[in-house]
């Protein structure tokens, strides 16, 4: 009896040690394939829990935001006739991906997602959520990809302060900084910083974060601006990838006159 138990124990320990000896890439491929089958019920349940956790308060918040954006949109459309260039509305296609893992040594710096080159993902593809920018695709394999998030040290992106039109560089140096803001530039706590659209990677207008501190430093030209990222990377369970070229829709004048 004891002997049989010892054999079972030895076999299980050997089976547990085996994956530890595998390379990181092999581990990910094996896990992704196995989890798609073995964790299927859990995935369904997690999605259900995620769906149910969209609370009434959140729905109301989104409805309020939607109404505000509609009003803002209507006001902007009224201005269109003053502009001679035709107004074109861009609609991006989004691909939802599940976060399947994190880099243990840099838990918020890199995220593993369950979409890969089979889903036509490519390097530097922008990654967002409903709250704003998450990062970009840093590595693509057949069944999984790795995302470099804006919480990874050294992550940099061109940013824009919409109120004043100030351009700068958002950089992760322990905390998120908005660099190259001049001493006399009017930027205050609570202001939003969006992507400027100047890089070839990120489209314009994605929320990066909000200003939580402005400090005069020992610099003749610039001041320090600190940002709070709009996305909480440590809470992410799924993300959206911006896929392909946006479909551009020309706005009809009838809508404007309405």
């Amino acid at each position: 009896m004891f002997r049989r138990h010892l054999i079972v124990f030895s076999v299980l320990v050997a089976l547990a040690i085996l994956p530890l000896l595998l390379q990181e890439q092999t581990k990910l491929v094996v896990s992704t394939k196995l989890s798609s089958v073995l964790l299927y019920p859990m995935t369904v349940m997690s999605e259900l829990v995620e769906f149910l956790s969209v609370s009434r308060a959140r729905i109301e918040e989104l409805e309020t935001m939607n109404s505000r954006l509609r009003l803002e949109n209507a006001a902007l459309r009224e201005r269109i006739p003053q502009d001679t260039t035709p107004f074109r509305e861009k609609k991006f296609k989004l691909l939802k991906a599940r976060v399947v893992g994190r880099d243990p040594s840099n838990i918020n710096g890199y995220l593993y997602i369950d979409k890969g080159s089979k889903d036509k993902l490519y390097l530097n593809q922008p990654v967002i959520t409903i709250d704003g920018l998450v990062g970009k695709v840093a590595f693509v394999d057949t069944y999984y990809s790795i995302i470099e998030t804006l919480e990874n040290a050294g992550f940099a992106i061109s940013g824009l302060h919409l109120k004043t039109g100030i351009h700068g560089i958002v950089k992760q140096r322990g905390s998120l900084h908005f660099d190259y803001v001049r001493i006399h530039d009017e930027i205050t706590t609570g202001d939003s910083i969006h992507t400027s659209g100047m890089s070839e990677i990120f489209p314009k207008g994605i929320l990066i974060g909000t200003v939580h501190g402005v400090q005069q430093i020992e610099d003749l030209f610039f001041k320090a601006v600190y940002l709070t990222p709009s996305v909480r990377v440590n809470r992410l369970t799924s993300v959206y990838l911006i896929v392909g070229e946006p479909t551009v829709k020309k706005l009809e004048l009838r809508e404007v006159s309405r």
Partner: protein
Amino acid sequence: MRYFIYFVLLYILLPFNVTIDVTIILLFFIIFNENERFALIFAFISGFLIDLYNPGRLGVNMLVYTLLCQSLLYLKKYILRSLLTTFLTFIIFYLTKNIVVHIILGSPLSSAPIALTIITFFPIFWLLHRLVYGVWMKT
């Protein structure tokens, strides 16, 4: 039938493992109440499924769960069954598992899930007794 219930419970409770480590409570319950070989296999499978959630660490939880399960199976003969000793044994078992996993992976320990798991240990433990054996606690 009981074994089937355990696996169903494992599948149902695993998505909530991030907030409260229900799997470890379930495993602790099985180690104390079920066949030793089944407990060992269940520990291995639990570790395997947890590892599948975090592909980068495949094998770590499988090994830790199996070794800790075997250690507790060996020690349980010498543990007096009472509320206090059961609770203390669970705390030591759970903290050892957490510390070992975090030493291996080098990731930070978060106190909130640990505190929640310890607080909810008895209610879940009693519910499991009630569900499987029809009594609130076996002593």
